[in-house]
């Protein structure tokens, strides 16, 4: 066989492995990240009337910087691939949209206007670019993590703003989001269950979103560090444990 043929065959085999391994990694990330996101921040993601200016922009960024940090730790340090955060957020959005469209809307008929998910794409691209440009994960934690929290509300605002237009409904002031919640009946999610801003005697009305964004940015920095370390040293570890038999044999030989 000619060398060039062998070379082509080798490259084809390597390419096939690339595709299967990348596909497996992507699907495992979608499963893991989505189940994590759904069960720690899901309620704010499901419903338009949960997307408030206090709790949603705190909970979502803090709990969704986790998988991106861990994925960056492996993809950047081992392969110099600056796409760790973006591929996670792509996977999450894929998993969410498959559900919102096929199930929430397609099966149980909640309108998509009510159940569209939040996006982290812009913040994820920024996080990846900060890591790529600085090449330093501590700087990425400090600057990228901070931007991750700040960018969340502005980059989602274009989607939710239309639902914050006020309406007078049966004599009460409501937002369009509230009216949607009122109209489309959810059997197990009563209004009182919503964890949204209700006002306090110590808050200054105009500053809620900014304060929430700064706080979530600060905690995102703190979350980035342990998740990077877990990604690099635990989930991305290549350690093998000896079996009982092998360990016993070693002791005998020594």
């Amino acid at each position, binding site marked *: *066989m000619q060398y060039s043929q*062998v*070379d082509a*065959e*080798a490259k*084809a*085999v390597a390419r*096939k*492995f690339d595709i*299967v*391994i990348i*596909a*497996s*990694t*992507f*699907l*495992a*990330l*979608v*499963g*893991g*990240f*989505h*189940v*994590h996101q*759904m*069960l*720690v*921040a*899901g*309620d704010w993601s*499901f419903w338009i009337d949960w997307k408030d200016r206090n709790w949603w922009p705190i909970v979502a960024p803090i709990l969704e910087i986790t*998988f991106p940090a*861990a*994925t960056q730790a492996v993809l950047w340090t*081992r392969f110099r691939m600056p796409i760790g955060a973006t591929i996670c957020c792509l996977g999450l959005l894929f*998993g*969410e949209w*498959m*559900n919102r469209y096929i*199930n*929430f809307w397609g*099966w*149980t008929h909640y309108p998509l206007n009510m159940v569209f998910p939040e996006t982290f794409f812009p913040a994820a691209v920024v996080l990846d670019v900060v890591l790529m440009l600085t090449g330093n994960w501590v700087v990425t934690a400090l600057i990228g993590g901070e931007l991750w929290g700040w960018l969340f509300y502005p980059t989602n605002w274009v989607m939710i703003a239309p639902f914050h237009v006020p309406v007078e409904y049966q004599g009460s002031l409501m937002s369009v989001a509230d009216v949607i919640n009122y109209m489309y009946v*959810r*059997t*197990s*999610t009563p209004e009182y269950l919503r964890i949204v801003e209700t006002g306090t005697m110590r808050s200054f009305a105009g500053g809620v979103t900014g304060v929430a964004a700064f706080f979530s940015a600060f905690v995102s920095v703190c979350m980035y560090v342990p998740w990077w370390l*877990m990604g690099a040293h*635990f*989930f*991305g*570890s*290549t*350690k*093998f*444990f*000896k*079996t009982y038999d*092998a360990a016993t044999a070693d002791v005998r030989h020594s």
Partner: protein
Amino acid sequence: MLQTETTTTGVGLPEKSAFSWRKVGVFFGALTVFYLLINVYLRLFAFSKGLDYTSQDYSTYWMGMLLTEFVVEAITAAALWGWLWITRDRALDRLTPAEELTRYWAWAAIVLSYAFSVYVGASFFTEQDGTWHNTVVRDTDFTPSHIVEFYLTFPIYIIFGVASLIYAMTRLPQFATRISLPYVILIGSPIMIMPNIGLNEFGHTRWFMEELFVAPLHWGFAFFGWGGLAIFGVGLQACPRIMALIHHVYYGKPILSASEVLKDPTGTCDPACCYPASEA
């Protein structure tokens, strides 16, 4: 170390057909069709037969399905795991590199099936349950959505996950004599999602009646979901060996023999092996 050792086994090119997409396609296609049919079943019978646990229809269409699932899953798991174990390679130390490479391709197909099943179970059908909770006021722990999510899709990825581990430990020298830490996390965490259903059902019955997804009764699932990240570690263990095999089989580069890998699998995890053959 890799540079100084040479193999004693013969070099033969594997058949091109050994790396066909057919293996991958059969697994992936069969699973896709199966899950589509399950979705069709839900669409057809969840609203029409699945709203009243005390009805005769419910017993027929849903509890009947649950029992069928249990039986089929037990048989499938026993048959698949048993077959993989009985047909194990008893002379792994004499494995040729060409054969080892083709086995990695079969293994990759099983891992892909596992990852796809994890996606379907943990993402698709889990969030689907979220919308069903908001559509009915449930009268049983065995809702149509739970019968599909907990007792069908979760066992399926457990079956594939354990099968992939048994395949690796009985056919690939790298995983045969040592327990891989990331592999245990990758397979073990999702398995632990199954027992966590106990906490979930207890919580929904006695603790949080409403559907608050972020309630603590759900956090166990999130914790075990993190295990999906361990696919990176498994990949980092397998990829250097796969690349070393390709370099050896097609370009004649030196490689650790199967018996050497059995003795020290950690030595095969050097990421330097991943560079293209021209640079290595």
